[in-house]
């Protein structure tokens, strides 16, 4: 991809057939080298896992693609029907794994509630919640995590988190991604398959994943693609419209939480352009014109992109050794 003089959504246009073949070849090459027979995909009913599944089918065929449906207590009611629509549509086998009991046994839900109660003591049965991070777009205020709670009467309130509460909430919810990955590896091991990771470029670049959870995988087929490109690929591959039009959600908290209010400052099509701009040194004025933001807003978003890279760099790092073990090289 090259940076053309007219910067805008078309800058992210791809040759979708060629890209599908390139990704398919990479998947096949990896499996050949790893001496594995197929791929496991955790299906969330979202765009990224759906496209990843469609790409595995394109690369390997439905008979070498295996899906997992793993909703839990906080999942949206529509999650399971949407994730099943993908395995049905592309014709590959899948199973439902009920992970709520495993999560409960690990204390995921009780530890979560306990952490929320550190800032909202009355929080308990019948309440819902989510954590949010104010957008960087409109002012230069440092982003401080807050918890939004809803009592059984439907009244919502917002509370700044303490460090202990914030870390406790994140640690408890991270059980969800890690238990799912544990199940993926169970099925990958029994089938002699690989696991797939489903982050798009925004998520991969900005560290929007759980280390040793959804961040762990043998192959990440769309980690190089901007989310706009993932949507384009979804249409090209025939992903059902209900999934292509579903709003992005983390599907992790009991209150509906968009990715924008938790992590990204802007809708994905604008974040893509800002990230592309940072990656290709596109002048801020051009990014502002393409996104409808002011130059000052673009500067804040760009600074936040760099800040997230610094903050989440460790998520990408392999374990640190005191010295190289030269005999072990990949």
């Amino acid at each position: 991809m090259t940076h053309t003089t007219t910067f805008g959504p078309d800058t992210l246009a791809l040759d979708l057939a060629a890209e599908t073949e390139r990704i398919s070849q990479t998947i096949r090459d990896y499996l050949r080298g790893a001496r594995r027979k197929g791929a496991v995909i955790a299906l969330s009913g979202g765009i990224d896992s759906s496209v990843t599944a469609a790409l595995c089918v394109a690369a390997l065929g439905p008979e070498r693609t295996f899906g997992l449906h793993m909703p839990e207590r906080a999942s949206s009611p529509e999650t399971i029907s949407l994730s099943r629509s993908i395995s049905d549509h592309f014709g590959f086998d899948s199973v439902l794994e009920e992970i709520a009991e495993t999560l409960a046994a690990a204390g995921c839900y009780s530890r979560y509630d306990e952490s929320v109660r550190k800032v909202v003591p009355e929080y308990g049965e019948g309440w819902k919640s989510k954590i949010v991070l104010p957008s960087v777009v409109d002012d230069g205020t440092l982003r401080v995590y807050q918890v939004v709670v809803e009592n059984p009467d439907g009244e919502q309130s917002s509370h700044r988190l303490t460090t202990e509460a914030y870390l406790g909430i994140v640690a408890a919810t991270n059980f969800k991604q890690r238990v799912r990955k544990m199940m993926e590896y169970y099925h990958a091991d029994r089938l002699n398959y690989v696991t797939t990771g489903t982050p798009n470029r925004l998520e991969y670049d900005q560290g929007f994943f759980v280390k040793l959870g959804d961040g762990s995988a043998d192959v990440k087929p769309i980690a190089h693609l901007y989310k706009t490109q993932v949507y384009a690929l979804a249409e090209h591959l025939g992903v059902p419209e209900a999934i292509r039009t579903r709003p992005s959600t983390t599907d992790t908290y009991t209150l509906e939480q968009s990715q924008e209010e938790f992590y990204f400052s802007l809708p994905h099509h604008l974040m893509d352009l800002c990230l592309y701009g940072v990656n290709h040194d596109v002048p801020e004025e051009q990014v502002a014109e393409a996104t409808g933001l002011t130059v000052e807003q673009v500067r804040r978003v760009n600074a936040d992109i760099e800040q997230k890279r610094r903050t989440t760099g460790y998520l990408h790092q392999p374990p640190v050794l005191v010295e190289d073990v030269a005999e072990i090289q990949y």
Partner: protein
Amino acid sequence: MDTQVTTTLRAFIEESYLFGDSSRMPADDESLLETGIIDSTGVLELIEFLEEEFGFSVEDTETVPENLGSISGLTRYVSSKRAQGAA
């Protein structure tokens, strides 16, 4: 600048973020965020430290880089909050 406040802040930064390595202490005007010393969790820790150590409440509107982003900014902010409290 209030040197006592600055000294207290440096001690907190050295202990909490630098594992006691004072050679990595940023210059007073350097950004704690851009140098990678604190992140979003570090901001929460910093707010709690200010509230506990200096006995005032950090309002949401005050969590701006000018107040919390550097040692000199923090020193000015703490001094200003203390002056408001004393008035």
